[in-house]
């Protein structure tokens, strides 16, 4: 008998939304001891399904039909108090953001003890809490129980969340993107932990994710959601290796391979950019009477970038890769080292002396929602750079129109404002803005990491195409090794502010020399899985929104 069985569940959205239902006719089952992965892009309704099962739907979203059977009882028919008693004891949940999921004012141990106490098991909390913390492989459990959350790293907090969820040995664990906010090595540890405790206790797990790599890593069965509906479900091996539905196939095709494409080595052109011994230290705290702390974001960074090549800088958060990228464009001012652009050291230059180099070095940013001024029209945003450097306004605007075409957007977008565009479209606009300066060197700082996987594939394809057509040299910052494998000729791996290894992509991926590089590669989720088939050509972006399908925001037709 299945543990959880959702039958034809339909949940409405408040009027005025982009569709009448958040989820429609959703049916799925989780058996004891199995992991069901619910996969979908943002807005597909996968989290909504999980929240409905927990009885934690936000107010204003009515259940229009269907049943949620848990151990044979309909959860939708239960009173709020009955649901409360089930939550935390029989049904437990962990969330995406470990940094904010714990009460900052309460000791970690007290928060776990509270979970026991509210279900009448508070008596042996003093014994159970350290046990639970030890069970999720946290060091020094008694000490840790007395700590406040702010002392713990993201991975540690997620372990605490898991310990708390498992405190009363629930039959079902719902995990809502529990590793999305974590670094790749931490992600792998947490995935293994979930696997381990689930196997040990025979817990049923409903695991929500957007990442097919994670699915390949952990799932027994898979359900794929698109716009509120389940389009395909089945055993993991079938869905991953022989997807039937067109949408599943498109999603899987968009997953970056994770193995470097064999590419002809770039003829070593003249070096364009060379960094030598760059160091940037940040100071925090202090003030009038306190002494602050300092932290080396980047140190001893050496690298060379040749004409026409793409160098990937990969690393986890806090590794210093973004600081390095920003140092090249003077958004960050390193205190030591040389930044040689065609032999000129840019580091000591004043703002004025730097200005001519702005034409030659441009940057594409990460967050499509923050990288465009919401109060400037798209045309102005693109034309602004050349105008600042003396191009007549008319010519700059004409050029902006051409650039929109180049990044596959309609020139009619000129007079519109950023909020009218989807994330993927905004990234194209950001790219056009950088290209308007006709740069020789393009710095791309995580340009696709905020995008859904299908859009990510489109933007990467566009970037590769434009780079080849314009002969750009590119410094590509990413945390995602799979993306780096896809697009970079060479990669440099950063850890704790230092470049620990660099070399041709294939060499680094196939024969890593540094232990950290090996750990990173081993942590790529789903590494053992090779997505089937050829990569599909990206869908036509002019007619597709963020989810690959037309949405209300996609006004450009």
């Amino acid at each position, binding site marked *: 008998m299945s543990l959880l069985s959702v039958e034809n569940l339909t949940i409405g959205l408040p009027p005025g939304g982009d569709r009448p239902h958040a989820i429609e006719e959703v049916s799925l089952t989780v058996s004891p001891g199995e992991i069901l992965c619910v996969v979908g892009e943002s807005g597909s309704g996968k989290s909504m399904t999980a929240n409905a099962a927990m009885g934690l739907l936000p*107010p*204003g979203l009515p259940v229009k039909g269907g049943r949620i059977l848990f151990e044979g009882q309909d959860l939708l028919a239960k009173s709020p108090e009955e649901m409360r008693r089930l939550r935390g004891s029989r049904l437990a949940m962990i969330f995406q953001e470990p940094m904010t999921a714990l009460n900052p004012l309460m000791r970690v141990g007290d928060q776990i003890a509270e979970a026991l106490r509210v279900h009448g098991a508070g008596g042996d909390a003093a014994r159970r809490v350290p046990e639970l913390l030890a069970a999720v492989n946290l060091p020094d459990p008694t000490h840790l129980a007395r700590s406040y959350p702010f002392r713990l790293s993201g991975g540690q907090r997620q372990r605490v969340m898991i310990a708390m969820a498992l405190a009363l040995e629930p039959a079902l664990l719902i995990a809502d993107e529990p590793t999305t906010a974590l670094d790749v090595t931490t992600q792998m540890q947490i995935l293994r932990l979930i696997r381990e405790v689930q196997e040990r206790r025979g817990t049923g797990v409903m695991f929500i994710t957007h990442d097919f790599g994670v699915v390949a890593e952990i799932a027994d069965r898979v359900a794929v959601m698109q716009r509120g509906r389940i389009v395909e479900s089945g055993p993991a091996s079938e869905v991953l290796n022989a997807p039937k539905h067109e949408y599943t196939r498109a999603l899987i095709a968009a997953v970056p391979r994770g193995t470097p494409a064999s590419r002809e080595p770039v003829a070593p052109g003249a070096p364009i950019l060379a960094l030598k011994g760059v160091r940037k230290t940040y100071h925090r705290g202090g*003030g*009038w009477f306190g002494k602050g702390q300092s932290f080396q974001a980047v140190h001893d960074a050496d690298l060379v970038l040749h004409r026409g090549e793409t160098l990937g800088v990969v690393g986890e958060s806090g590794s210093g890769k973004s600081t390095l990228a*920003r140092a090249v*464009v*003077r*958004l960050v001012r390193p205190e030591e080292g040389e930044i040689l652009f065609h032999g000129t050291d840019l580091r000591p230059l004043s*703002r004025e002396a*730097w*200005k001519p180099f*702005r*034409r030659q*070095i*441009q*940057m594409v*940013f*990460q*967050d499509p929602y*923050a*990288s*465009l*001024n*919401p*109060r*400037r029209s798209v045309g102005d945003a693109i034309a*602004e*750079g050349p105008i*600042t*450097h003396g191009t007549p306004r008319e010519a700059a605007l004409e050029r902006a129109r051409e650039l929109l075409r180049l990044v596959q957007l309609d020139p009619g977008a000129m007079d519109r404002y950023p909020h009218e565009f989807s994330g993927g479209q905004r990234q194209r606009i*950001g790219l056009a*803005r950088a290209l308007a*300066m006709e740069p020789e060197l393009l710095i791309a700082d995580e340009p696709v990491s905020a995008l859904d996987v299908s859009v990510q594939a489109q933007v990467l394809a566009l970037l590769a195409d434009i780079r080849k057509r314009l002969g750009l040299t590119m410094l590509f910052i990413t945390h995602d090794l799979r993306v780096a494998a896809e697009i970079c000729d060479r990669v440099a791996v950063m850890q704790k502010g230092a470049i620990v290894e660099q070399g041709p992509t294939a060499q680094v991926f196939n024969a890593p020399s540094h232990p950290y590089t090996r750990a990173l590669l081993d942590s790529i989720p789903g590494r053992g899985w090779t997505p089937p088939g050829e990569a599909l050509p990206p869908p036509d972006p002019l007619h597709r929104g963020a989810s690959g399908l037309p949405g209300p925001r996609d006004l450009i037709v």
Partner: protein
Amino acid sequence: MALLRRFLRHPGAVVGAAVLLLVLAVAILAPVLFPGSPWDMAGPPFAPPGEDGMLLGSDSLGRNVAAGIAYGARVSLLVGAVSTAVAILIGVALGALAGYLGGVVDDAVMRFTEFFQTIPSFVLAILLVAIFTPSITSIVAAIAIVSWPPVARVVRAEFLSLRGREFVQAAEVLGKRPMAIVLTDILPNALSPIIVLASLNTASAILLESSLSFLGLGDPNLMSWGFLIGSGRSVIRIAWWMSVFPGIAIFITVLALNLVGEGLSDAMNPRLRKRGAK
């Protein structure tokens, strides 16, 4: 225009705006509605409301309370608007400096702001007006001096967060000058909290002005609401109307400004609006 629509969806804000326009009309039309000086005797002293042709009664010297309120509206609105303008100017300049430049400048400006926020502002305002002798200029100056710190704090916070935003960094990478970045990229996006703050600050400036003139620190040549209440205080047992009506005038004006401010805030910040609607 979407902004206006969202604003109009707020019944409180619409009523507030209407009341504000009414007060403004009374202030402008005061000489037409009540010809002659509000300081002149218009009838017998202590006439209750409605008698001797005086809608809101008369005071101890037979002056028309309604006329006093109409002329007082001019002073209140003028002081509220001008002192707010000055406070916003100081606050935006200092906040922008601190938020954009950061580092030592930020530290210095914020210490200075904190200092002004710590000292009891009303006592300082009294001291300033008293020492520099009460006049419309010293009152406006004193109110502006005590009310800029919140503006500076908000503007600094906005600038600080916007400066780290990627579109500002993009502008920098394009080679725009700092002044151009501040004026075209940062300030326009920091405008909505400043506008909201301006309307709320006008309300508190009017309260402050009335408090000062209640204590006898008003401009001796100008009729004001606080002065009317102050002069009615000692005779409240025999002529309640002398203090009640000017107080109501202050109340509805300040309330209207607060409602407009909240409406603007909700209209400009849709994320919060959702919460209010639930």
